C-alpha cells in the first residue's frame, strides 16, 4: 500500500492497497464463518429421539382414569407370554397446559363422569423412550365417544414398592417426550416451569449408570397435584423421597412432603441404586 493511499467510503472504488487487504480479510472471514458454523453444529449434544405428531390427529380407545394423573389405558393385544398387553397414555392439554381443564369441561358438557369409562379420544400423539402421551385440544372436539364402564380387569395393577429416595431431574413430559429438543436441562428450564405451572404433571427423569432412563410421575403424598411445589426444582438435579407405587406401566412417586424434594450436586445424579425401580416397573421398551 502506498503511503499516500487514502480510503473514503463514498468514493466509487477503494484504493488498490485497501482493496487487496480487504480481499484477504474476506477470505479469512469466509474460513472463520464456515469453521465456526461446522464446529458449533457438530459439537451439539445429540438431539433426543422424541416425536410429536404435529398436525396429525389419532383416535385412541381405552379406559380413562382421572387419577393419579389423567390418562387413558389402552389394550394392545397379548404379550409374548400370552398376558394382556396394555399401555397407559397420560393426557396433556394444548400449549403449556394440563388436560384436567379440558376433561372437566367435556364432562360438564356431556353430563357424564368419564372416570373409569371406556372412551375414544382424538388427539396428537407424542412419544419417546418407550413412553406415549397424547395431547388433547378443545378445538379438536377430542371426545369422540363414551362407552360402558370398564370391567374390573381394566383397573390399574398397583404394586407398592416402599419408600425410596430417587435422584434425577424434574422435567415436563410434554416437551421432554416429543415437543421440544432439548426438552430438559438449563436451556429448557423456563419452558418446563411454565408447562408444569400450566398443569402438565411433573416427571422425574432418572438416568442409571448405563445411561438408560426411567421416568416417574410426581404427585403429593395423597395423590394431590404438586406442580407449584416442584417449580423451584425443575431442570436441576434433585433427590426425591417418596412412597413408590407402580401403576401398570408407570411408576408414581407420592412425595411425602415438600421437604421430600431437595437439590443435589449434578455428579450425584447417576447412582447404581437408581436402577432398582426401573427393573420392577413394567415398561414397553
Amino acid at each position, binding site marked *: 500500500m502506498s503511503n499516500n493511499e487514502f480510503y473514503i467510503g463514498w468514493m466509487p472504488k477503494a484504493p488498490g492497497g485497501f482493496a487487496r487487504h480487504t480481499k484477504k480479510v474476506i477470505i479469512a472471514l469466509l474460513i472463520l464463518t464456515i469453521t465456526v458454523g461446522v464446529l458449533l453444529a*457438530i459439537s451439539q449434544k445429540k438431539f433426543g429421539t422424541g416425536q410429536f405428531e404435529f398436525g396429525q390427529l389419532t383416535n385412541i380407545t381405552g379406559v380413562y382414569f382421572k387419577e393419579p394423573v389423567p390418562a387413558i389405558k389402552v389394550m394392545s393385544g397379548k404379550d409374548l407370554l400370552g398376558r394382556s398387553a396394555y399401555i397407559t397414555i397420560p393426557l396433556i392439554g394444548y400449549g403449556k397446559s394440563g388436560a384436567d381443564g379440558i376433561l372437566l369441561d367435556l364432562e360438564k358438557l356431556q353430563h357424564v363422569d368419564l372416570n373409569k369409562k371406556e372412551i375414544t379420544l382424538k388427539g396428537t400423539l407424542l412419544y419417546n423412550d418407550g413412553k406415549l402421551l397424547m395431547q388433547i385440544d378443545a378445538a379438536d372436539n377430542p371426545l369422540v365417544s363414551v362407552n360402558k364402564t370398564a370391567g374390573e380387569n381394566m383397573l390399574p395393577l398397583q404394586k407398592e414398592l416402599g419408600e425410596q429416595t430417587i435422584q434425577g431431574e424434574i422435567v415436563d413430559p410434554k416437551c421432554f417426550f416429543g415437543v421440544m429438543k432439548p426438552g430438559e436441562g438449563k436451556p429448557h428450564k423456563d419452558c418446563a416451569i411454565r408447562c408444569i405451572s400450566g398443569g402438565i404433571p411433573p416427571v422425574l427423569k432418572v438416568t442409571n449408570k448405563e445411561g438408560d432412563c426411567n421416568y416417574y410421575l410426581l404427585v403429593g403424598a395423597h395423590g394431590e397435584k404438586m406442580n407449584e411445589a416442584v417449580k423451584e426444582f425443575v431442570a436441576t438435579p434433585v433427590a426425591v423421597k417418596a412412597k413408590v407405587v407402580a401403576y401398570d406401566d408407570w411408576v408414581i412417586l407420592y412425595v411425602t412432603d415438600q421437604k421430600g424434594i431437595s437439590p443435589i450436586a449434578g455428579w450425584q445424579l447417576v447412582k447404581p441404586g437408581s436402577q432398582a425401580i426401573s427393573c420392577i416397573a413394567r415398561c414397553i421398551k
Partner: protein
Amino acid sequence: MGASYLAVGWNRQKKIYDWFIFAFCALYLTTFIAVTALYNPDYTFETALIRSTATLAILLLHVILSIGPLTRINKKFLPLLYNRRHLGVTMFSVALIHGSFSMLQFHALGNVNPFVSLFTSNTQYNSVSQFPFQALGFFALVIFFLMAITSHDFWLHTLSPKIWKALHMFVYLAYFLVIMHVMLGVVQYETNPVLFVMVLAGAATLVTLHLVAGTKEVRKDNRIFKLKKEGFVYVCESQDVPDNCAKIFCIDKERIALFRFENKLYAIHNVCKHQGGPLGEGQIIDGCITCPWHGYQYLPQNGQSPPPFKEKVSTYIVTVEGSQVWLNPQPLPEGTERSGAAIIIPDKQIIENVQ
C-alpha cells in the same frame, strides 16, 4: 456525507458491503443447519433456527467489536468500518429472530403473558448456576434494539454526538450480557467444550485487540511537551508534517490535528463531528480535511464543513518560528477562521526541489 437525510445513502461500496453481509449470513445459517441435520437426524428445525441465529449473532457481534480496534491498529481495515452500522443492524435482526423464536418456543401458550413468563418462570436470581439466563439475553436485545433504531445520522444529530456515542457504548454492556446469557444457559447443558472454548477465545481476542489499540493511543497521548512559552507549546519541526496530511498531538487532554496544506499549517480539533473519527488520520482531498471513517469533510482554515453542510470543529492558533512549530492548545470557538502558518522552507530545500 449528505445534506439531507435518506433512509440509506446508498453508494457502490455500501452495496458491495451489504451483499457480503447477506452472503456471509446465508452461508453461516445454511452451514449450521445443514451440518446439524446431517449429524442429528432427529433435529427439529425450530431448535436449529434458534441456535443458528444465536451463534450467528454472536459471531457478528465479535466482528463488529473487532473492527474498531483493528482499524486503530491498521488503517487497512477502514473499508470494514465504513458500513459497520449495517453490520450492526443485521446483527440485531438476526438476534431478534433468535429472541422471537425463543419467546415463542419457551414462553408462548402458557398461563401467563410470555413477557411475564420470561421474568417469573425461573426466579432463582440469587443463584449463579440456576440464574434465569434468558432475561440477560432479553436486556442485551433491548440495547441492540436501541442501537439499531438510532443507527442513523438523523439520530446522531438529534441526540447530539456525545449522547449518541454514550448510547452506543452500551454495546459493551450488551456484549457482557450476551456472554453471560450463553455461559449461564446453553454452556451448562452442552457436554462438548467447543462452544465454551469459542466464547472464551472470542472474549480474549476482543480484550487483546482493545488493549493493543488502547495502549497505542495512550502512548501517543502521553507525550510530554516540555517547551512552552506564552501559552504556546512546541510540538514538532515543520518538515515533520507530511503534505496534505496531519500529525496528532494530545495537549492538556485535548487532541489536536495539525495539517499541512499548500505549505501552510492549520490546527483543528481531532474529533470528527459525525462519529468521533480521528480527523488527523485523514487527508486533505479537494482542499478539505477528510475524515478516514466516513469521509466527512472540513475546511482547514476554519474547521467548517463546506456548504451546504453545517458541521464545525474548533480551530487553534499555530505559529512557525524558523522550523519550529508552536501550537496554542486553547481552542477557538468552532468554525473560527484562522489563516494558516506559513512554513519557512530553507533555500537549500527549494533548490533541491527545483532540481
